[in-house]
């Protein structure tokens, strides 16, 4: 044994995974030092689509930064909208009408479902199964149609405004959303039969890519990554914002710490999001969707403010420092995947290449959000 171990440690080679690689879903590069197919060391190299959103924020008025938020996490753009408008509302002390908050939650939960569906497809694609991707896209398309009918765009939404939302919904949207909930509930057993219960998938995900709770804490992992490690942390419950305290939903938590646990957390979250949408549609109050007394030029008082929201990938926090002028003095965007990816180097040490890619898929990376 010892002789074998000695001889094997010497011959390593560097494998560049990316910036263009089918498994990295964007322009992420991972510098792998490999011993055969075992990974000795992994170093993610970021910044290929770094756009310096924080600097852009300092050069624009508060309202002008809104379109940027949708372009960081293009899969759950509405949550990023939500985080930014919430922090500015908190800073400027703007009250939001109740109906607007309901619309925010409905749309952003639908967006969360669409994000999870895309992740599901892309993850199975990473594992080599192609068809679930297109089944998931089929369902996702319905959400995109719904959201397009409200927001006017399909991907990089910019729907929330300081003090409300940009447009009210109509009856068709309510009917469409209810029909979609029914449809997706009917499809979930198919996904589980086709994918979750598949022996090949189970063998690939069970006990693969362990991330301990302590590791999550040390790296600041949030979202499904930490919930797959047995940590019950969801910003929607932890520091409730918007109308989430009025909603009855559960936070799925799995204790196994492996890729399967993270997979299951996301699959269960789809159902929970549907529940939230259903309840919000039931309780939807009448009223305006925009506050009356929103000043045209927003000048929050001096000081710094923080607000966190739960996106599909974890806790997204915005810290703004205002100097009382019409542009932010400093805008810090704390994106969840940035922290989640930072544990990748440690987590995949000693793993085999296919397992490391399964682990990477289970982290649900959205590169523009990491690079910002």
């Amino acid at each position, binding site marked *: 044994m010892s002789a074998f171990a000695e001889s094997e440690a010497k011959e390593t080679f560097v*494998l560049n995974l990316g910036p263009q690689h089918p498994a990295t879903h964007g322009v992420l590069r991972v510098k792998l030092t490999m011993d055969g197919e075992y990974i000795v060391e992994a170093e993610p190299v970021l910044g290929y689509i770094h756009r310096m959103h924080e600097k852009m924020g300092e050069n624009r008025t508060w309202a002008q930064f809104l379109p940027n938020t949708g372009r960081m996490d293009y899969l759950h753009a509405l949550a990023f909208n939500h985080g930014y408008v919430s922090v500015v509302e908190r800073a400027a002390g703007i009250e939001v009408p109740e109906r607007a908050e309901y619309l925010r939650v409905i749309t952003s939960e639908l967006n969360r479902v669409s994000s999870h569906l895309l992740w599901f497809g892309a993850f*199975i694609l990473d594992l080599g199964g*192609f068809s679930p991707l*297109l*089944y998931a896209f*089929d369902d996702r398309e319905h959400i995109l149609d719904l959201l397009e009918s409200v927001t006017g765009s399909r991907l990089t939404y910019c729907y929330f405004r300081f003090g409300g939302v940009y447009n009210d919904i109509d009856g068709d949207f309510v009917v469409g959303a209810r029909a979609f909930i029914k449809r997706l509930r009917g499809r979930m057993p198919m996904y589980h039969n086709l994918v979750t219960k598949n022996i090949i998938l189970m063998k690939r995900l069970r006990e693969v890519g362990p991330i301990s709770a302590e590791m999550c804490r040390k790296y600041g992992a949030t979202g499904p990554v930490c919930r797959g490690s047995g940590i019950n942390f969801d910003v929607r419950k932890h520091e409730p914002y918007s109308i989430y305290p009025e909603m009855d939903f559960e936070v799925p938590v799995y204790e196994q710490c492996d890729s399967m646990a993270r997979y299951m957390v996301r699959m269960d979250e789809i159902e929970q999001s549907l529940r939230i949408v259903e309840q919000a549609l039931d309780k939807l109050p009448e009223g305006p969707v925009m506050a009356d007394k929103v000043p045209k030029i927003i000048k929050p008082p001096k000081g710094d403010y923080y607000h966190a929201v739960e996106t599909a990938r974890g806790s997204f926090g915005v810290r703004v420092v205002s100097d009382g002028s019409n542009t932010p003095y400093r805008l810090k965007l704390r994106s969840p995947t940035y922290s989640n990816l930072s544990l990748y180097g440690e987590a995949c040490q000693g793993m085999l290449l*296919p397992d490391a*890619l399964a682990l990477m898929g289970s982290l649900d990376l959205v590169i523009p959000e990491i690079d910002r």
Partner: protein
Amino acid sequence: MYVDPEIIRLLAFLIGVIAFAALNAAYLVWLERKEAAHIQRRIGPKEVGPFGLFQPLVDGIKLMTKQLIVPAGVDPVLFKIAPILVMVPAIMSFVTIPFSDTLVARNLDIGLLAIFAFASVNVLGLLLGAWGSRNKYAVISAARVVSQNVAYEIPMLVTVVTLVMISGTMNLSKIVGLQMGGFWHWNIFNFSASPLMPVAFLIFFVCMLAETNRAPFDMAEAESELVAGAFTEYSGMGFGVFFMGEYANIVIGASVATILFLGGWDCPFGLFPGVHWFLIKMYFLIFTVIWIRWTYPRTTFYGLLNLSWKILIPISFVNLILTSAMLKVF
């Protein structure tokens, strides 16, 4: 001048076999695309010709007109010889396959052995191509191909040995001849030889998938891990020949499975046996191969080795022992 009619017959067969292999490769790509599309509720190729039927021709022209790039740093000889090494044995194997009782190029007494001998060369081609490419992804892929094939030839050959024991011959025509007269005579349902025959068929089928590097055992090409594995550096017709070789191997695998287990050209109900039944069974198996590819995720290679050594090999040995015991008793 006297020419031996046997030589003319062989030449005609050779041309026929090459045409068959090439046509199959082209149209199996079409079938794969069409089938994948419908499984995923798309249409697939539809623009070129009716139902996109001319798409393979257009693809072929595209591949042929593309420049053959030999990247700097590769071993030029190995790099160029590898696609041929994959293609030629596949075509050679066709020589001994009996499509019907008369439609066979050379009815060898060791036909079965010849096919497995040729099938092993295929691995060599992939290995050399990957090694010659001097690409890290390709080298990882080459290592996977070799370990995969070593692991899978054992259960496959053990299963085949079982069949040889039952039939008492390695002549493919004779093996089919013993199964004539309805589906209850086929080896897959030959419960008098061994109650595990359907399982043996499954094992053979799984091994065939692994041998031909088809999903869910396509670790060699695993596009989400190794980009394109052994084919990463190939372009144009070099890639095209590899592809044809792969599909030709699938056709051979399906043919051998048909001959060994499904009674070759025999009709399931004992009526009108002939080449059409052979083709129906073979294409059904190919359809299944494609169907499987578009259903499952990929296994990892250690999952595959586990499957081979812990499940397939023990079961195939159990089947072998059971069969020999039953043959001895009855």
